[in-house]
């Protein structure tokens, strides 16, 4: 077993989790400037939204193109409640999550009656309606001006979340919670039902899975994730505009998800971090990043439809299967030689007797 295999085995051990969390905890101390911490915190916030997308698209197999819209709903709910109505941050934060869930439920009940392409197109339209409403409904959303002076999360006098590093840890906590919840969902009966639906609607229905209820639940979970991420985003960036609802964000999240590995547990995190840092190191590309990401999406779906994490898991699975097979063969041949050996003395004995 060579070093590569050993490393790949280490990735699968529980110790890896601790290493990753430690690395995340120590990151602000090794980062060379505050900007890097900021970028990382922002990536964590996006990763939360991408985990939401992974539930409906990765597990349940429904391409939801309104995800950016629900992100914006979370951001705007928080901003409107805190700025225009003077709510405390955390109450508004909870309200943002509830708003995402409620609106997600309404959108889901209508849109999930449609299948596949129809669902994707319908959600694309839902996302666009959200964008247009935010842009045009000036009394509520301040229209194209956006909302400024959104308060940072209140630290109850203990911590100051306007500073970058405390916010980084806050985003980290929320992201770890999100991943933990996503893992719990994925491994539960619920997650298995979602996967059955992805593989085949008819099959899932014949197993007694209530399609509509499960799909709506997956959709509501994903929109809640998105709006919580959006609320955190508003608390971090502290000014938002209609551009947050732009469909480009949805496409960004699809890219993150696809690069990392759709339907895998660590894929969303890996994809978000990788692409965020790639974009940061290619600063000049900021505006034209889609020239790279567009073809990247196409190449990925054609050649690596399972993303980096998915490809890794497949590779490892194959290797383990191969190793298992050779081990079985070896043990089988060993048994053979053993029986031979076992036979030989008896033959000799027989020969002696003869």
């Amino acid at each position, binding site marked *: 077993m060579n070093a590569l295999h050993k490393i790949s085995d280490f990735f699968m051990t529980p110790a890896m989790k601790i290493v990753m969390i430690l690395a995340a905890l120590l990151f602000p101390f090794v980062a060379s400037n505050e900007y890097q911490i900021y970028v990382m915190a922002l990536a964590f916030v996006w990763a939360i939204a991408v985990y939401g997308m992974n539930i409906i698209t990765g597990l349940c197999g429904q391409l939801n193109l309104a995800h950016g819209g629900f992100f914006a709903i979370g951001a705007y709910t928080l901003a409107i409640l805190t700025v225009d109505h003077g709510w405390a941050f955390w109450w508004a934060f909870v309200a943002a999550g509830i708003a995402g869930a409620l609106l997600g439920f309404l959108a889901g009940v209508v849109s999930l009656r449609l299948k596949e*392409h129809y669902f994707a197109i*319908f959600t694309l339209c839902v996302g666009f*309606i959200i964008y247009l409403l935010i842009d045009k409904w000036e009394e509520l959303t301040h229209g194209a001006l956006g909302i400024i002076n959104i308060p940072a999360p209140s630290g109850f006098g203990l911590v100051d979340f306007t500073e970058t590093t405390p916010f980084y840890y806050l985003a980290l906590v929320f992201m770890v919670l999100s991943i933990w919840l996503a893992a719990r969902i994925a491994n539960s009966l619920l997650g298995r039902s979602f996967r059955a639906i992805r593989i085949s609607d008819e099959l899932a229905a014949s197993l007694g899975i209530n399609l509509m209820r499960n799909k709506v639940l997956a959709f509501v979970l994903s929109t809640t994730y998105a709006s919580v991420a959006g609320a955190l985003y508003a608390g971090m960036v502290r000014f938002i505009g209609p551009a947050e609802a732009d469909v480009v964000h949805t496409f960004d999240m699809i890219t993150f998800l696809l690069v990392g590995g759709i339907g895998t547990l660590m894929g969303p995190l890996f994809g978000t971090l990788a692409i965020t840092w790639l974009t940061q190191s290619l600063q000049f590309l900021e505006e034209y990043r889609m*020239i790279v990401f567009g073809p990247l999406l*196409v190449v990925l779906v054609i050649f690596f439809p399972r993303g980096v994490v998915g490809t890794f898991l497949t590779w490892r699975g194959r290797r383990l299967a191969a190793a298992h097979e050779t081990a079985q063969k070896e043990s089988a041949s060993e048994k053979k030689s053993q029986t031979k050996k076992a036979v030989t003395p008896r033959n000799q004995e027989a020969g002696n007797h003869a």
Partner: protein
Amino acid sequence: MQQVLNGLTLGSIYGLVALGLTLVYGILHVPNFAHGALYMVGAYVSYVIMVDFGANYWLAMLGAAGAVALLAVLCERLVFNPLRDAPPIHDKIAAIGIMLFLEALVQMHWGAEFRRMPTPYTGIVEFAGLTLPAQRILIIVGAFSLMAVLHLFLKKTLTGSTIVAMAQNREGAFLVGIDANRVAMMTFAISGVLAAVGATLFAPINLVYPAMGHLLIMKAFVIIILGGMGSIPGAIVGGLIIGFAEAFGGFYISTDYKDIIAFALLVVILSIKPTGLFTKGVR
């Protein structure tokens, strides 16, 4: 009456674009999200031919049609053909990838600013107390004659009927010896031509910019959901319904929310009748 004209203009352009989409969907079952980008590229190509090369409007339309048809065939060969057996979610993501790429490319080359496309038909026709801008009449006449030509092509020629055959029954079409690759390429080429002509017709009364295809493609999707995916008359009727709804809605309700009308209509219709207006088997 003025609104009827507006509705007819919008409706015929929507119909043209939706027609291209519905043809591709009928054959390949790919919802081509890149179709709006093809439309946008069409507008830019004719803009360049007219402004930078000083060519005639019709020549520009022809050039754009050719260029976009080629681009569409290229997409089919390079992207959709290798994905033929992939799960449907992959086609959609790949189409989105193409769309993002084309938009970013155009934006890098020509910038994000809005451009006005010149047209030789700036006159206004007075008829029975109505003022009819010549370009609008050109759009209506042009779009409907193109639809008629397409109809004749599909119904009366052998090549056209291979497309119809494949849309009706894939295996059946293979059995009688229809080359799937050829039909797929041809369908993409036709959808490209429709998008480019639509763009060249519509751009003079609208503007040319990289995101111009966004709204249109979504409306075209609304139309083909309403009209039934893969249905040609459905696309035309659906286009007119949305066109009129927008023209009257924009006039009587609010111009601010004009663009929402199509989507709101979709939401309302699908909430009441999830199978669409004319469709069979959405679910």
